[in-house]
């Protein structure tokens, strides 16, 4: 299973919330490798890629907030024009809906993080296109 596991935290959309959560993670000795925060009106969801998933989840749960693991797909693409388009085209033509996407370039490697309800199908069509779907370890060792 080459899905990447994120830790998702449900928080109120008000000052100090990010600080509260990141302090909990820092105190637990958890290193954050990647983060995204999406807010919608009164609340928001923070998603972290961390080096130690289970300790992160435990530490956060102890402090109270609602936490959940969330599987996403990490796809390595070429760092050149049209790379995201090729992924989007492939998924779209196979009827795979993507909920949230973000991307970054690290050490000259371009990575897309995709949230979708149908991970197995998304992975299958992407791999068929010759794209590399990264594992948790690969993501952490970028």
């Amino acid at each position: 299973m080459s899905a990447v596991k994120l830790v998702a935290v449900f928080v109120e959309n008000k000052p100090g919330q990010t600080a509260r959560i990141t302090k909990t993670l820092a105190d637990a000795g958890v290193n954050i490798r990647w983060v995204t925060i999406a807010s919608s009106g009164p609340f928001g969801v923070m998603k972290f890629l961390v080096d130690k998933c289970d300790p992160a989840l435990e530490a956060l749960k102890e402090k109270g907030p609602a936490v959940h693991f969330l599987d996403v797909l990490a796809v390595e693409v070429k760092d050149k024009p049209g790379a995201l388009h090729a992924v989007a085209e492939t998924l779209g033509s196979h009827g795979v809906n993507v909920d949230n996407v973000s991307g970054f370039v690290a050490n000259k490697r371009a990575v897309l993080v995709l949230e979708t309800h149908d991970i197995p199908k998304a992975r299958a069509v992407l791999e068929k296109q010759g794209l590399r779907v990264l594992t948790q370890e690969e993501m952490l060792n970028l």
Partner: protein
Amino acid sequence: MHRRCPHLLGRLFVWIAGGFGRKLPANPQTIVSMFWDQQIETMGRSALEQLQVKRLQATVRRVAKSVPFYQQKFAERGLKPGDLKSLEDLRRLPFTANADLRATYPKGLVAVPAEELARLHTSSGTTGKPKALFFSRKDVDNAAELIARCFVMTGCTRDDIFQNMMTYGLFTGALVMHYGAEKVGCLVIPAGPGNSEKQLLLMQDFRSTVLHITPSYALYFATYLESRGINPRKDLAIRKAFIGAEPYTEETRRKIEKALGVDVYNSYGLSEMNGPGVAFECEHKRGMHLWEDHYIAEIIDPQTSEPLPDGKRGELVLTTLCREAMPILRYRTRDITSVIAEPCPCGRTHRRLNRITGRSDDMLIVRGVNIYPQQIEQVLMAVPQVGRNYLIVLDGLDDMTVKVELAESGFDGRVEHLVGLQTEIVNRLRAEILTKPKVELVPPGTLPVSEGKAKRVVDNRRL
């Protein structure tokens, strides 16, 4: 029954061809008391009390004959209709509670054959079950008759153009006022609530002079006019506003009067007693005359149920005297007020009620709609993703926000699911309480936990 028209002296009546200007703007001169039914409205106290006794006896005889609920209550107390000799005997009669009306839904406490029923209204209850309130043809007319008294008491005439900005439908508020205004001979505009742009257009095009509106909407509408650069004193013909359906303060009245350039008259009513027109202010605006030929008012201590003297604040208890379809004895309104027994300079002998200052139960009135916190709880607890704690926050002009704690298991890491859940809760609540609240999902453990009885409602409204 045919009535003379309560026409104003010196008021001109003109027709302007091809336009809507058939009515002149309200005359600013002070109006000396006018009456719709002077004989009844100024009747001596002892004659009025005799009339009350006579009508009470007739009411009691009728319910004893045909309403099983009261038959049972009378039997429990060993009470016979003939025992009722004076108004003092009123306290021997059983109370009727909100719960009694709900328990008899949908049949209601009907005292006439089904074919005599002419109208149904409902009022919200605490268990999802409303109260069914039936009117006969005569009851509909009587309700309108009382409204006509109220209108004329504030100086309204058939020259007025009445824009009714309350909710039409199962609630009594808009329809009962509508019928009364027609009886007076006003031009009635059944605008309904909301859609400020349309409301303003109606006021501009038809030169509305009198509004019926909730206090929260009046305040909102004033800011709307301001944002549109409309000066109501100069640009509109509105002169009076009848404001009821929700409690509000004297300060709010002054604010509305200043912002809309109108005289605000306080109105009291409840669906169980026909809706509006139970009590209303005259031009002196010092308490609301309660129509004592139609209702007997008592003030009781809500805890002990013992009667309180005039002037003391307590729960208002009302008995109908003229209702045909559904007479109600000693109804516990849960509204807190007091009776002003001193004569009013307007010449009416019907005693006045002070402004309602609260409720003896936890009913909320939001945008004119009665809501019990239990209704909200019931909806929330039926949603599996919802946790145990919630808080109802009322603020602004009349905004309701329901803060809902998510259950630990209600979170799967996806924002979309939370947004969807929030929308679902809004829709479910709207279906139950008939008004659309704002819903805010919050993480578990976020809302304050109180010892013992949880504090579920925070009311910060500026009404």
